């Protein structure tokens, strides 16, 4: 998504859907279960606007039960399905030509690919009847605006990156971007997954999606108030400062070293602070890696199953961490709104807050002063410098973030403003997020980008009909000024309302600011201004942009062709473990990959290793249950929530179950292609067809039939335990992000 138009985040918000959407196209998301409050808004849109709810899912979900149109798709065929829709849209001339012409680059290649996907071909690949594909394409073309909603059902695939590109492409073709009631509403999972991602607790970037280049590191060193040379020496060698680290998906290979890895050292110590270990695929490999480590540190409010999976007898430490309600700070909701979470009670028992844990160890590790100095910094006379000698954690850290993170426009997120919004939440309109009274002119929680401390936040991304200073903007100029001789800037017809510049413009740098904005900088300004809008601590670029009504990141075209990717335009590739062996030849996966996140990943060699569908004939779909989230670590410790699903199960169609002589409620074994297995209860259910089963991914505490109850420290075992579905999720990782393939796999069923 970020590779299409600049940012990878939900573009609109829930209230907007209620007020403006005429159709809701939900694919790979089950909001009724994963995000019930989001679902409320979709149902309100149905009731108030007569909005059509279209749900595309391999399973008849609780969201599907509320849909006007339900399409049962085969797992891992989303790209094919969208091309099937595009085929019909292009064929009938239903695309928004004006929008494409003026704001999109590379559409011809999409048109060419879409030509191949006739309704009949699409129906064969996706399993969705051709009439339904035609019907939905027609609804999308005739019903504007449509909002597209997705979640992990789209991203968690070996083709996840292509999936997240094809949906924005659909919206660009329909001209639904930057529009009220349109957009791509990606629904994030955890409470602050958007915030933690924005802050890039990630192996491939620094907070705000700054890359790992020297320029980024220097920007951060400056903002943190640490010497760049010192920081460089902290790494094994400078090279490793610029290299992506191991990812959550395959870190275990860094420990096991069964395959070639590309790091300065194997992994010997694992520090887990708030990651449910059982929410990762390849649990058996993870178990082996946990056993091999020299040190495992776990810091959590509840026992992380990492402590329980492992057979190790020593060198595991568990530190008690306070819950969010015994702590303070802001959280970023799925719509980029930041909300201040006020502390309710002091940390209970001997627990410490997450940041206190970090502080304690920073002291021992010898970098406490450098670690905390950023909170003592400030901007004085256009320059960043240390301005005080003490700090107050959440507030000063917020202001530090606001100073440093320019890319996604967090300049406006000062602690003072965020707190004021939370204290006055009653002053904001739920449909528009607009403030009233004292909060007039601002949007609730200052949805980013909120470029500076005067900016009201941007409730709808890429809306050129709204002035920049009221939350409008064009697409981001992120991919250069031209490609193959074609300008990447928006056409002259796309002028952001109220902007002093007609049509498109590049991102603002110290080199082009005078020319682009048509201004003259004073000598003092010239001396203080940073290199570009992303690294300018002086605030000069931002200020000049505000005066000109210009978004500092430019006004460019979205691109549907990513020339640096293995697939410049998304193409359908069969899942690595495909139930359709006949289609694998025609739509093969990628070639094997060398060194991504310091490990190799098998693609074609795995896909062709054997006729998987023959030995593993049933599709494996993972799902959420409403009472549990993530690894279920939190909710399974609640007696009321556990009571709703006290044990692990799989939904199975009676016709399939009876083929194996399995009765409702009986145990069955599920075997995976990589030779692992889990034992679960069969729940007869009609939400799945006889070619697939679905199982929740929120359980842990049982491993391949072995109950691990005795391994929990006394008094910490959750009320509900069970096999983790991730013990049998199939091998497979996205070629760009390395997100594991959770959603398109195969399994073999056996009566237990």
């Amino acid at each position, binding site marked *: 998504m970020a590779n299409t138009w600049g940012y990878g985040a939900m573009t609109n918000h829930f209230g907007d859907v209620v007020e403006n959407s005429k159709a809701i196209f939900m694919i790979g998301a089950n909001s009724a279960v994963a995000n019930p*409050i*989001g679902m409320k808004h979709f149902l309100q849109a149905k009731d108030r606007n007569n909005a059509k709810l279209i749900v595309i899912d391999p399973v008849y979900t609780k969201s599907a039960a509320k849909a006007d149109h339900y399409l049962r798709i085969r797992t891992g065929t989303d790209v094919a399905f969208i091309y099937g829709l595009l085929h019909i849209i292009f064929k009938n001339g239903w695309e928004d030509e004006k929008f494409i012409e003026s704001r999109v680059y590379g559409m011809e290649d999409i048109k060419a690919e879409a030509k191949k996907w006739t309704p009949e071909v699409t129906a064969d690949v996706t399993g969705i009847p051709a009439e339904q594909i035609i019907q939905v394409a027609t609804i999308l073309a005739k019903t504007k605006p449509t909002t597209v909603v997705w979640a992990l059902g789209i991203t968690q695939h070996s083709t996840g990156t292509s999936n997240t590109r094809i949906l924005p492409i659909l919206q660009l073709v329909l001209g639904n971007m930057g529009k009220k009631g349109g957009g791509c509403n990606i629904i994030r999972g955890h*409470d*602050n997954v958007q*915030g*933690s991602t924005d*802050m890039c*607790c*990630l192996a491939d970037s620094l907070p705000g999606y700054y890359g790992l280049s020297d320029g980024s590191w220097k920007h951060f060193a400056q903002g943190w108030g640490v010497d760049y040379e010192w920081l460089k020496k*902290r*790494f094994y060698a400078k090279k490793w400062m610029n290299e992506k680290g191991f*990812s*959550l*998906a395959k*870190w275990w290979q860094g420990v096991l070293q069964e395959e070639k890895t590309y790091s300065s*050292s194997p*992994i010997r110590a*694992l*520090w887990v*602070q*708030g*990651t449910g270990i059982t929410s990762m695929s390849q649990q058996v490999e993870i178990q082996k890696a946990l056993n091999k480590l020299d*040190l495992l540190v776990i810091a959590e409010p*509840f026992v992380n199953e990492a402590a329980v999976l492992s057979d190790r*007898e*020593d060198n595991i430490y*568990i*530190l008690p961490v306070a819950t*969010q*309600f015994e*702590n*303070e*700070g802001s959280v970023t*909701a799925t719509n980029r709104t930041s*909300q201040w979470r006020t502390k*309710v009670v002091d940390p209970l028992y*001997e*627990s410490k807050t*997450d940041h206190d844990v970090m502080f304690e160890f920073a002291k021992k*590790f010898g970098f406490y002063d*450098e670690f905390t100095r950023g909170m003592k910094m400030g901007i004085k006379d256009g320059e960043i410098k240390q301005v005080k000698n003490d700090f107050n*954690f959440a507030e000063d*850290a*917020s202001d530090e*973030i606001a100073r440093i993170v320019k890319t996604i426009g967090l300049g406006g997120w000062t602690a003072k403003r965020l707190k004021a919004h939370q204290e006055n*939440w009653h002053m904001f*309109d*739920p449909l528009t997020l607009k403030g009233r009274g004292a909060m007039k002119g601002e949007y*609730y*929680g200052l949805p980013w980008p909120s470029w500076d401390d005067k900016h009201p936040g941007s409730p709808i991304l890429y809306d050129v009909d709204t002035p920049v200073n009221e939350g409008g903007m064009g697409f981001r100029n992120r991919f250069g000024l031209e490609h193959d001789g074609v300008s990447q800037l928006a056409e002259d017809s796309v002028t952001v309302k109220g902007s002093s510049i007609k049509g498109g413009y590049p991102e603002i740098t110290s080199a082009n600011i005078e020319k682009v904005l048509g201004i003259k900088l004073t000598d003092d300004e010239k001396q203080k201004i940073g290199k570009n809008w992303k690294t300018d601590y002086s605030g000069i670029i931002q200020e000049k942009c505000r005066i000109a009504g210009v978004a500092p990141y430019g006004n460019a075209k979205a691109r549907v062709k990513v020339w640096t990717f293995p697939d410049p335009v998304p193409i359908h590739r069969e899942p690595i473990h495909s139930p359709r062996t006949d289609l694998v030849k025609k739509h093969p996966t990628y070639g094997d990959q060398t060194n991504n996140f310091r490990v190799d990943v098998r693609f074609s060699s795995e896909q062709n290793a054997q006729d998987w569908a023959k030995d593993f004939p049933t599709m494996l779909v993972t799902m959420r249950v409403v*009472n549990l*989230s993530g690894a279920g670590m*939190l*909710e399974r*410790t609640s007696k009321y*929530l556990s009571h*709703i699903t006290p044990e692990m199960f799989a939904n199975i169609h009676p016709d399939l179950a009876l083929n194996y002589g399995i009765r409702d409620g009986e145990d069955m074994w599920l075997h995976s292609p990589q030779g692992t297995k889990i034992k679960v209860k069969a729940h007869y259910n009609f939400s799945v067809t006889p070619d697939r089963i679905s199982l929740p991914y929120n359980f842990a505490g049982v491993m391949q039939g072995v109950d691990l109850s005795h391994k929990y420290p006394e008094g910490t*075992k*959750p009320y509900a335990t069970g096999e983790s579905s991730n013990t049998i999720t199939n091998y497979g990782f996205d070629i760009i992000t390395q997100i*594991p393939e959770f959603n398109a796999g195969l399994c073999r069923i056996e009566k237990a």
Partner: protein
Amino acid sequence: MSKNSLADLSLKMGRRTFLKLATIGASFGATSAFASSDSVRAATQEEIKNPFPGSKRVKTICSICSAGCGIVAEVHNGVWVRQDVAQDHPISEGSHCCKGIDQIDLVKSKQRIKHPMKKENGKWLRISWDQAIKEISEKMLKIRKENGPDASMFLGSAKFSLQEAFYFRKFAALWGTNNIDHVARI
């Protein structure tokens, strides 16, 4: 007791008129036959309005999903006694799913980790923070000395606050590695 006659209740009762009801409910409670109780007294106005007199209502945000629902926590003498709905919150308007309304139980859960622990010879032992910090940091530094900073892997959280997420990334950077990730990857 059955079918007590109450004051005339001719008002239509929508949500707004619950307040009216409250008064009636209260007077009923305070004046009805308490034959079994020998310490009968009328409820004070404060008690009728709030069973935890002097408690404060803290506005905060649910910790489960990214919808960002508002929560009102009633805190009495430093203890979170009740979870109430935030009817005026612009995203949730009072709504919660089962996980959201049960946040109070998350904090109060019996299964919380109450003190630092380590496993030794297959047994979990209670240890002090001082001991935990000392032992872990010595081991971490030893590994760093032997194999360099990339010998450690840091897994952060999508449940950190924004500020803590920023600081965890900084923590790994200052340790000297890019081996840091969190569940956004999945």
